[in-house]
């Protein structure tokens, strides 16, 4: 008996215990693993904050293509560290991931913000948004920008110190 005898369900369960970086590596093993690695169940929740056991994304451009290829309809939860909170990534999430319901934006390590002047799309089916504030920068402008997209929201969760 070898690993190829395992059912799809069992292999997907195995894949559910490894992180997305390893999952993408496993998708190169053989054709069957490649197909199974695309299963929507594996891409529902995506964790990208290294300090919370998430995967560390270094190349934000490559990451953009993964949003449109893998996350798509499956994605329901994602957390983004400060360096991935960009106009491009937020636009891509808004366009490609209509089932995204729970978004965490972690600005806690931010010393300065990306420019959100061009932000004109934002995930608009969110039920929960969690925003981790930075101690040193104000998010007022950003909050003003995203406010119109939050009408479906049930919970607004803000972590950190509000400074006025």
């Amino acid at each position, binding site marked *: 008996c070898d690993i190829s005898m395992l*059912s799809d369900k069992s292999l997907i369960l195995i894949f559910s215990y490894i992180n997305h970086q*390893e999952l*993408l590596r496993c998708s190169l093993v*053989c054709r069957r693993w490649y197909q199974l690695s695309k299963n929507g169940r594996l891409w529902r929740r995506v964790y990208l904050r290294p300090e919370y056991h998430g995967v560390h994304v270094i190349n934000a451009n490559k990451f953009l293509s993964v949003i449109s290829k893998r996350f798509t309809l499956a994605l329901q939860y994602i*957390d983004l560290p400060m360096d991935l909170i960009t106009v491009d990534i937020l636009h891509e999430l808004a366009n490609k991931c209509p089932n995204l319901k729970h978004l965490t934006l972690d600005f806690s390590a931010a010393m300065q913000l990306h420019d959100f002047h061009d932000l004109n799309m934002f995930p608009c089916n969110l039920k929960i948004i969690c925003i981790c504030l930075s101690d040193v920068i104000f998010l007022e402008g950003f909050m003003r920008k995203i406010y119109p997209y939050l009408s479906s929201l049930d919970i607004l969760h803000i972590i950190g110190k509000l400074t006025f």
Partner: protein
Amino acid sequence: MATNVEETYLYSSPTTFKVSSKDGEIFDIDDSFINQSKTIKNMLNVLDIADNHMPIPLQNIKGTMLNAAIVFCKYHKNDLLSIPDDEDEDDFERDAYEPRRSDDISEWDKEFIKQFTVEEGTLFDIIMAANYLDIKALLAVGCKTIANMVRGKNSDQVRQMFNISYDPPGEGLNTPRNSVTSKESGDNQLLTTQEKESRCKTPSPELMYD
């Protein structure tokens, strides 16, 4: 008085059944097994077996695996059966902030699973048995063990470890093959077969998250 009541309860309740394996071995199973194996539970509900001396045939499972599953269930009989049914539910709030982990196998389970190996293929046998019997906790231990083996290895090493022959995932993939974008994007879905093959043969740290 109280002990008496308890005793009566204990002695009146045990229901044991017999099951037989693929290779004809017969085992007694009790509540600990029936409660954890959804397959058996369903069978008993449907079959409504009055005569519990006739063994229930489990044609897919070898005796050694069945025995191991029974031992596992006996040990875990007092565990809360709280393992969520499936990931399919819409309950997106459930541990939404924490990735699933596989470093939480208990010491007993670690020792238990050590008797099964990749080389002999028994690790896959026990996972298949757990899958067939629908014993969530046992399936989880087996799958976590494999996940832990895969972690940190490149695709070449994974193929080697599990003796998987490389089967180039070229044709049959409905992915765009745009040679202009493939250079830029680096997402493995955009690679051509040749590129993929060459990448698979060398350690591939160039995936999107790296």
